[in-house]
């Protein structure tokens, strides 16, 4: 069973569409994906607003997979959907308003934290607590615009990031400030199979960036800039940055266990789009159920 997990679309408010490269890739693989899960923060308009004629949902429905689940969406009934979506896109009605959604996918209990915040934000211990409550093997949480994957205490934690590259309200740098569990987190990550190593490298780089950024901040706070720096500041320097974030999505491949009691495992494919080169980068992680 191949599930496509899209997070933080914020369509159309913060991004108009999926990146062309993603659409192309998904369209090419029409028929291979069995289900689409959209997992996001509560402010994502696609989950609740009047995104009538939402072109993105229509695209997913027509060119990727007709089974779309807006996880945790407050759109409850089919009737409500009809009012909100003028086109006939059938997404599944939902069971609960404020909570966790858990799906049993070929023996894996996959919990989604969608539409509800995790407090403290993206805190590992808080996530472990949620996973314990949902009795899940895999926990996917939305609301974080950076893609992330790590295993901890026998649970695989996944953040699909943002599929559209939508900006997040909180500062990107602060979002990278990790909580105290970072140490433990990295230890655990090394247990993940060899292929996951790339992912570790990436996050290490991020941490390095983070450190340098912090240094800059403290410099600013502690002492005024050096006169030499001032000179360079006054020169006409043009820096171009972007509000957007590297878009990403996840593919979760959970094959059907052939023999009863067989050790089951799944593969997570992490697709991200490098905005500099406009190339898709794919990483994968294997995870065994304990």
């Amino acid at each position, binding site marked *: 069973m191949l599930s496509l997990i899209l997070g933080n679309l914020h369509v159309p408010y913060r991004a108009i569409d999926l990146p062309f490269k993603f659409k192309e890739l998904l369209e090419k693989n029409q028929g291979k994906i069995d289900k689409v899960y959209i997992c996001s923060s509560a402010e994502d308009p696609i989950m609740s607003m009047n995104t009538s004629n939402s072109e993105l949902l229509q695209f997913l429905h027509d060119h990727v997979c007709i089974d779309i689940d807006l996880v945790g969406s407050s759109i409850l009934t089919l009737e409500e959907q009809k009012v909100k979506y003028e086109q006939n896109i059938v997404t599944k009605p939902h069971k609960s308003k404020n909570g966790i959604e858990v799906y049993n996918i070929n023996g894996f209990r996959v919990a989604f934290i969608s539409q509800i915040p995790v*407090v403290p934000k993206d805190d590992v211990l808080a996530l472990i607590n949620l996973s314990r409550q949902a009795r899940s093997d895999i926990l996917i949480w939305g609301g974080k615009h950076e893609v992330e994957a790590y295993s901890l205490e026998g649970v695989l934690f996944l953040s699909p990031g943002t599929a559209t590259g939508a900006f997040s309200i909180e500062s990107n740098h602060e979002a990278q400030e990790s909580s105290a569990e970072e140490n433990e987190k990295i230890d655990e990550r090394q247990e993940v199979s060899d292929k996951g190593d790339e992912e570790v490298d990436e996050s290490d780089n991020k941490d390095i960036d983070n450190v340098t950024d912090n240094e800059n901040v403290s410099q600013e706070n502690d002492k005024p800039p050096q006169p030499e720096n001032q000179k360079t500041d006054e020169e006409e320097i043009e820096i171009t940055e972007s509000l957007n974030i590297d878009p990403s999505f996840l593919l979760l491949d959970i094959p059907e266990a052939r023999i009863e009691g067989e050790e089951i495992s799944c593969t997570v494919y992490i697709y991200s789009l490098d905005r500099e080169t406009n190339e898709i980068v794919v990483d994968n992680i294997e995870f065994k159920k304990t």
Partner: protein
Amino acid sequence: MQNNSDLIKQDSFTIIRQQKVLIVRLLNEISVINNNGSNLIESFKHFNILLLELKKESDSPKEYYELYIEVYDVLTILLNYLKANHLKLFHLTDIYELIQYSNNLVPRLYLLITCGVAMLGFNTFPHIEILKDMIEMLNGVQHPIKGMFLRYYLLQRCKFIFNDEKKAVSNEFKIDFLIANFIEMNKLWIRLQYQGQLREKSSKLKERKEVELLIGYNLVQLTEVLDLEEHNLSLKLYRENTLPRILKQVISCRDIISQEYLLDILFQIFPESYHCDLTCIDLYLSSFLKLTPKTNISKSVVTLIDQIISQADQNKEENHKSTLDGGILFDKFLKFLKYLNEERPDLPFKDFIVILSPLISLVLKLIDPESLKLRLDCLDAVFSFINFKKRDYAITDEINFLLKRVFFSIKDFIEPDSSLPYSLLVECPNVDEFLLNSGSDFIRYEMLDMIIKYRIQDKSQIPLKDLSRLLKHFETNSYTIMSKSELVFKIFYMLVDSKVIISSSFEQSITDQFESLQYCKNWVLNLKIKYAKADQKGKIDFLTNGLVSQYWRLLKKIITLRKSKQKKIFEKFDKTLLKQIFKNLGGLIFEVNHKKKMLSSLVLSVDLAIQLNLHNVAFDFLESILNEINQNFDINDKYNVLLLLIEFLQKDRQYFIKNSLQDKFEQICVKVTVKSFEMNDVFLKSTLLLTCTHLWWTSDIDENNALKYNNENNGKRIHEIMNKLIQQITSNSLVTNYQLCFVLIQLLNKAIYYFIHGEIEFFTIQYLNNIVKLLKNNLKFLERENRLYLEQIQIVQEDTPDKDFSIDDLFLNFDGEIASTEDKEVDPDVNLINFKKNLLLFDSFENIKTYVLEQGSLDERFNLLTI
């Protein structure tokens, strides 16, 4: 009738075949007596009989053609015989003379041509004289079919002369010869229309179509002649010698079928490169103007443009430098259109419209995108022409559809990121007018959709001056807003670009974008007043919220500047402008009708204010959030908003502390906690309160990624909240055992969280053990409930099937309700559900136990917990 004509036809074939046998016998016989060529003379009798069949009136050109083929075959025998035996048995000059005496015109001419052609095979004869003689003789036949076929026969036989590279006959002569023949043949062809009985027009048409190829054959031969020359010379011959004469005939013949056919094959037969010559284009266009009224002009114009475009493609493919100048060509065609409009007021609008799409294609294909920016007037002129013509015609659906196609033809020639459609709208007043006056809303929006779609790809912002021009298209009625709100939103989306260019002009660009946002804000507020009643589906709310997001984007840009190394630019940035942006943003958010959305937006805006170090703004927003929560509010929405607020407050806790705002911040936190206590639902209340505890706690890590104790953390306050929660639920007799245990498990989890984080003053081993003890005591009641339930079923259900006691696919949600991982319905038996809920709580407790045991190996303190 049919049978009769078949019989006649069969008769003719029989005669031809019989004569053929006789001729073959005569011409193959080699006899001593007849070696002076008398056999040949003998054979002429038979040829005469045979050729008389071509003199008879035939029912249709088609049948005549069949006979002609048969005859041609036999004449080939003669031709070969003549060529083979010249000077051996006879002299061809004598034979040519001899044939002149034949009585019947048609047979005589066929024989003369055959003989003349045989003479052309020898250099000893004067070629030009012979050719001239033959073509002049043909003028004697004015019967259309007979004359055309004779001329065709001449062409077929003389082909080798036209192809001759040695130029025994000059190319100029060949061209003269072929054109003369073409002109005469065309005249005969037209006469076919009026000859013989007055038959139905349609059958006449059919007959004419059957022989049109004979005319075309002249032009085929002409290209072969031109092909013998170098390109430049052949083009010159075409331009100066060939084309003007052909066109003259086309115009002067004043026959629709002829004009349409000839213009059609002219483009097919001669190479594209000829038609792209500017002089030739002038020749074509001026002759189009002179065509006979019912001839389809537009088809020829379109074909001509297609030829030019296809030549341009070919040039590109072969990497030739194109000599075609799109601008000059366009001007020619536009001038032509204007002449046509003046000279042919009788032409229907449709005929003009069909020319316009190819004309747009021509411009887009031949003018590169960069140069096109300076020649947008070309495209504007097309729409100016449409707008002008539209006034004189009734606009039917068909016309609307065709006009839409004209507009959409732009799409086929531009890159997906082209800014052209948008430039058209804002820079070409005639395109704007065209859109505004387009007959149906539907078509108008399709066009606007295209413009906007392309614009979205082109990430730059929309300047204020273009805004009113764009929004104007949506102001016509309420329907347009309600059904096209996504399209309108896309305009909003383009007000602020995603690029952050940090330079000295940064503040100016922010000011400009802010002005655009303000314009849209006023526009939306006007809509709200105007269409409040019509807006059943909350589309204006959708737009308002969407606009809020664009204010956020603008603020994010300023935040990016603040975080960049260019501190100077941020320091210089006008702080009153910043405050103005927030003021506008706040005002806009309060216009959102949907309360939850409104409050969520306020929360997110607080975070942005903090990132810009505007704590006063942040506190103002926070106060208004708390005020709004006071009022009537759906409990679930209230819960969600509070959770979101807690999330952001917790995240920004360090900011407030660092900026000595701790007191003010904690006042807010207390208010939030009080509101959480006010929740009526036990489950929601406990979840909220336990989340609130984080408002007094920040987890820090040091450079080694190890947990760092934060002096500002307030374990006492957390402890208080938890105790108050325990006190409330234990003292309230309406709280069930299940609810109590559920909350206690959550609470224990939270207590362990702070325990791990090193809060040692209040979250002591003793405290945790007390919670465990309380929990265990209460779980006992649940165990008893479950035992009772099991006993009951054993008594009641002796013969009913076994109940499913499995909890594998179940879990407990925040609202204390059981939830399933499968899509199936949960068994509606309340007692069974309660039984399972209890089981799930036991399971949760077991999980905590396992967790504590496992942690023991990492943190010795865990070993002291009596769980």
